[in-house]
């Protein structure tokens, strides 16, 4: 019997397997940041151990760094300690670090791909749950905890039980104006937040093949939000074209050898998945969340649901609690929900393509009175590319705040936070209670919805803006 893509990649990385024990997997790339690594390094130090493969390790500062005044000392003492500690550890253990102020600094999941370090067929781990992003290249990529970070640092391997496999096939083409983000939000509402538990998911089908690498990263990024261990997409010409010429991409004969191997990384015709889901992209529409988990979503054209409409008791209670926290009335059209802050950024939607799309929609408009728009590039490179293209001027002219690179309001560990009761439309990936600041209310949205919402002040799509200009 043939193998699925994920089984092929997995099997290529098994260092040791024994009956009744998890496999020992080799890790090709270990990404590090300031929040989950300090105790892992300290553990090495206490045990007198070294980093086994500093040449397969990369560190960047992203989770709690400020996006304003980044050339000044970090004001928050805990953040400052974490960042200083990362710098000391990287120095002591010989790990390459892109610190604040460096041109390659940025969100770890934006930096890996843009350096060309993320390649098909790799195993990639990081002490961050959205490591699944890298699966867009046909890699097995997943988040790990601090003690596992220490294990990978010391051994370049991880003990892992082989997950089950699932195929998510998305047929048809996305309609104009509907994005990868809408696709994945639709999927999560369809499966629920636990639907992927225990699986490595392969996304496939025409709609997936038609996505750009950025779009594929958005989809894989949110695999974790429906519980999957990892999500991946078979590499194809789109993948190769994206990688070619990147700073760490193979060149010459190495490139040819690499591509020849990458082309074998597809699920065999006769391979079997443990589970399959099929969706149709052509019926998808802009999609937004109304609740406090990413599976609580509706089409933008829909209404805040009535908790009574849920069959399961658990969903009903969940919806009631969510509406209370979100300050929403059942039946309210989503388009009438007023938004205080729009956040464009994060490892889900903070890449250059995302900023281009946002600028294209905002151009010629102003941010609505009573709403603020925060644009946070995923990395310094993205920021510089955007400035080269003049995108920052579009944002600034519209009245937006143009910031430095980092995770920022995605998780509110730096000063970019919502205040209690403040409502956001956010291009990030989590709408949990308090995720973007204590008491903050988050609606997850796509880039076009974020941009249009900033202009109208209520949840909107670009189609609403055309009406605005013609009226």
């Amino acid at each position: 019997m043939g193998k699925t893509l994920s089984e092929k990649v997995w099997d290529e990385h098994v260092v040791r397997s024994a009956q009744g024990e998890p496999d020992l997997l080799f890790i090709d790339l270990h990404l590090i940041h300031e929040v989950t690594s300090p105790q892992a390094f300290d553990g090495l130090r206490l045990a007198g151990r070294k980093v086994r493969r500093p040449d397969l390790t990369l560190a960047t500062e992203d989770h709690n760094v400020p996006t304003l005044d980044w050339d000044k000392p970090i004001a928050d003492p805990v953040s400052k300690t974490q960042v200083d500690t990362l710098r000391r550890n990287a120095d002591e253990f010989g790990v390459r670090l892109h610190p604040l102020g460096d041109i390659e600094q940025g969100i770890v999941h934006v930096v890996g791909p843009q350096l060309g370090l993320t390649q098909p067929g790799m195993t990639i781990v990081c002490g961050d749950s959205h490591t699944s992003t890298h699966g867009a290249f046909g890699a097995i990529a997943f988040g790990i905890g601090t003690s596992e970070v220490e294990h990978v640092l010391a051994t370049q391997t991880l003990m892992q039980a082989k997950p089950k496999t699932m195929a998510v096939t998305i047929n048809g083409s996305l309609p104009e104006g509907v994005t990868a983000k809408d696709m994945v939000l639709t999927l999560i509402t369809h499966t629920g937040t636990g639907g992927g538990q225990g699986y490595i998911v392969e996304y496939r089908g025409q709609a997936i093949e038609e996505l750009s690498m950025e779009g594929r990263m958005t989809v894989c990024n949110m695999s974790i939000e429906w519980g999957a261990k990892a999500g991946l997409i078979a590499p194809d010409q789109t993948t190769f074209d994206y990688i070619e010429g990147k700073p760490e991409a193979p060149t010459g004969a190495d490139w040819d050898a690499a591509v020849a191997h990458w082309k074998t990384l597809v699920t065999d015709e006769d391979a079997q998945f443990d589970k399959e889901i099929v969706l149709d992209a052509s019926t998808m529409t802009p999609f937004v969340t109304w609740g406090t988990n990413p599976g609580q979503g509706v089409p933008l054209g829909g209404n805040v649901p009535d908790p009574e409409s849920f069959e399961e008791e658990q969903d009903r209670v969940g919806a009631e609690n969510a509406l209370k926290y979100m300050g929403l009335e059942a039946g309210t059209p989503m388009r009438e929900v007023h938004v205080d802050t729009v956040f464009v950024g994060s490892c889900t939607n903070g890449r250059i393509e995302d900023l281009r799309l946002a600028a294209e929609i905002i151009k010629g408009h102003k941010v609505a009175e009573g709403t603020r728009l925060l644009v946070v590039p995923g990395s310094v490179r993205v920021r510089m590319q955007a400035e080269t293209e003049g995108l920052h001027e579009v944002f600034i002219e519209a009245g937006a705040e143009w910031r430095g690179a980092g995770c920022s309001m995605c998780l509110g560990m730096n000063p970019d936070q919502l205040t209690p009761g403040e409502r956001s439309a956010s291009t990030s990936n989590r709408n949990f209670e308090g995720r973007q600041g204590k008491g903050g209310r988050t609606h997850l949205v796509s880039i076009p919805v974020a941009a249009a919402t900033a202009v109208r002040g209520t949840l909107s799509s670009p189609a609403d803006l055309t009406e605005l200009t013609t009226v």
Partner: protein
Amino acid sequence: MDKFTTHTGVAVPLKRSNVDTDQIIPAVYLKRVTRTGFEDGLFAAWRNDPEFVLNRPEYAEASVLVAGPDFGTGSSREHAVWALQNYGFKAVISSRFADIFRGNSGKAGLLAAQVDEKVVQKIWDHLDEHPGATVTVDLESRTVRAGEGPDAIEDSFDIDDYTRYRLLNGLDDIGITLTNEADITTYEAQRPSWKPATL
């Protein structure tokens, strides 16, 4: 990780059940970037009370904690184990441990010795009579011992074979993996040269 064969130390009675990880170390103490120093947060809420058992001079050198049932429930934070170890504890005796706490303990080298509820009571009684007395936790023979003469306590404790093996040999997860280091080296030697590197 240090090998654990047998330990004899001052035992302290913690006469409470359901001691959860928030009580072992409250969240506000988790900001540290090291693996050490968490002793200052250990049982923080209770240590404000001068009468709290750990504040009594006879227990200043305590290294064995004898607690009520359901010790270590709550969150999965490994800091709870670190805090106990940083304070100087080598072993915790209880009639029931939360699974995650027991797992974290084994990985970090803290012995979680599960005994019958009656044994906990006997040790508590013994410590009440002789504050500052020592208790021996012998991992090789899986026994706890306290006192002397006719009143001496000796009973067995439960620990799974695998955790016992790891503790006896001082093997943490990394140590276990490194017993197969030759396999890693072999694997590394056959990786294709075009795979990316950061340095």
